[in-house]
């Protein structure tokens, strides 16, 4: 029975154009909408799989604004059964602050008699790309950490994590309790079912306040990269461009 805590972050959906807020302090999500990072969607999937394979539980946690409850509900809708929300302005919290608050959640749950044997996080968040919250959390908790795992399984009392490396696939085997950060690509996150969504709505979300004052992220401001000079040759517009395209294919010798 493995009780997993999976940590997620509400981020602006940055698959389209990225727009900054007027004060240059964050990405503007008013039009793009919000989501959870892709790595974390995979971490949630792995948490749910591990909980179900071992007869354990999967709890989801986030630190964020009140609306971050949406991302918690999304995780509940695909199989997490409990959720914790540390309500705070995420912009004020740097990676070390977030790690400390997540550690406080783990300790509080432990004190309540529901310890988490395994903590899963995303390898890095889609917005801040800090690449360190999971590792810092491991130091806070004094637990070993495996980074960038695509597949995570529990065998006996150990977590087996598989990491893609330039030379192939590396396997780690670490006794529980442990922390693992997840990189997308190993599992396909499932989609919520209608009953899953209904169930998620009814779950009572544990609300917490931050355990300490944040030290901040050291951010001065965000900017957009300057546009790159382009020397693209436009072959035409719409279907009319087809002959020019096929001329190009012939020139490149790719038509056989």
């Amino acid at each position: 029975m493995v009780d997993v805590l999976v940590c997620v972050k509400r981020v602006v959906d940055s698959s389209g154009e990225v727009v900054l807020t007027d004060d240059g302090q964050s990405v503007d999500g008013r039009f793009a909408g919000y989501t959870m990072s892709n790595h974390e969607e995979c971490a949630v999937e792995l948490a749910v799989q591990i909980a179900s394979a071992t007869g354990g539980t999967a709890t989801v946690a986030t630190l964020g604004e009140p609306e971050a409850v949406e991302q918690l509900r999304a995780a509940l809708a695909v199989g997490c059964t409990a959720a914790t929300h540390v309500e705070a302005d995420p912009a004020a919290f740097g990676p070390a602050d977030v790690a400390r608050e997540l550690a406080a959640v783990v300790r509080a749950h432990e004190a309540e008699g529901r310890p988490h044997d395994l903590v899963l996080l995303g390898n890095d968040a889609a917005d801040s790309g800090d690449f360190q919250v999971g590792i810092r959390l491991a130091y806070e908790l004094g637990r070993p950490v495996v980074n960038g795992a695509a597949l995570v399984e529990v065998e006996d009392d150990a977590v087996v994590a598989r990491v893609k490396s330039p030379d192939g696939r590396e396997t780690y085997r670490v006794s529980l309790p442990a922390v693992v950060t997840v990189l997308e690509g190993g599992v396909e996150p499932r989609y919520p079912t209608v009953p899953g969504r209904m169930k998620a709505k009814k779950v009572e979300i544990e609300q917490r306040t931050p355990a300490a004052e944040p030290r901040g992220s050291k951010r001065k401001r965000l900017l957009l990269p300057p546009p790159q000079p382009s020397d693209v040759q436009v072959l035409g517009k719409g279907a009319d461009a087809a002959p020019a395209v096929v001329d190009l294919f012939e020139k490149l010798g790719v038509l056989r």
Partner: protein
Amino acid sequence: MILVLVETDANGAVEVSCETITFLRRLSAEGGGVPIDAVAIGELACSPEQLASQLASYGVRDVHHATGEAFASYGGAAWAAAVQGVRQATGAVVVSAAGTPRGMEVLAHVAARTGVAMAANVVAFEGLAPFTVTRQVVGGSALEEMVLDERPAVFTVAGHAVEALPAETPAAGNLVASSPEVGAADLVARVVSSEPPPPDLSGGLKSARVVVGAGRGAGSADGFGDLLELTELLDASLGVSRVVTSLGWRPHHEQVGQTGSRISPDLYVACGISGAIQHWAGCATAKTILAVNTDAEAPMVTKAHYAVIGDLHEVVPAINEEIRRRRSAG
């Protein structure tokens, strides 16, 4: 002093590590010529002497080679202990590495152990002690200016932030043996086995001469008909963006990009793909890129060699038709 973790292969320091050292040389020059030392860890596939002479040409003073049983297989905490050991011995005030998965991991450990901030994927810096770094965020779609006012300043340098260039005046490149102390707790999470990459199930995507790419512009799982036909007509492989795999329209093994396959075909026909930096990371080495996109300002269009502005559902069938017409005529 500036300390840099180098990653190596059979040819010596890898390209991104050389880029990182080139980047650090500018920092060193700003600081009036602060020496740069490197640390390489574990058994190397190249000869340590060869590495030291290569790094000398990049302006590295001492190359600390950390060896011992603790590094027989890779572990982030053990590597961080080695970097820490050298940092303490040399009094380095800057610790850096390339922004690779390993570089990020080891430096995050170093930052956590020393209780300082870490900046990932830095592309520029300004000022000295404290200095402000500019780093890639939102997957490279935006930049963040961040102050590094603690010591050591810990940061990774984004790939291709600068071009790797040897120094005008080479440094000593002394090889220094190092056997840092690694605690038992740092050896818990280590690679226990490694295997060669699994067989390529991507239908030859990585080695394809021509790749037809499809992004969100395909519209739906059913929107691939014409694209698949073009793939067949060109004897190509299909590659897709992450949005396509995330939406479940196509399987993950077809994904091109940072977290998908890296491709370098002679021709990449990128249809309905915005060209976000993470996708670009996987296709930048294509020899010729043709973008088909409704948006003339999409990064894929502005970075491509050729473009057609229009709806792929009109453009692609017309291309297919034209190919068939020429074939039957010819």
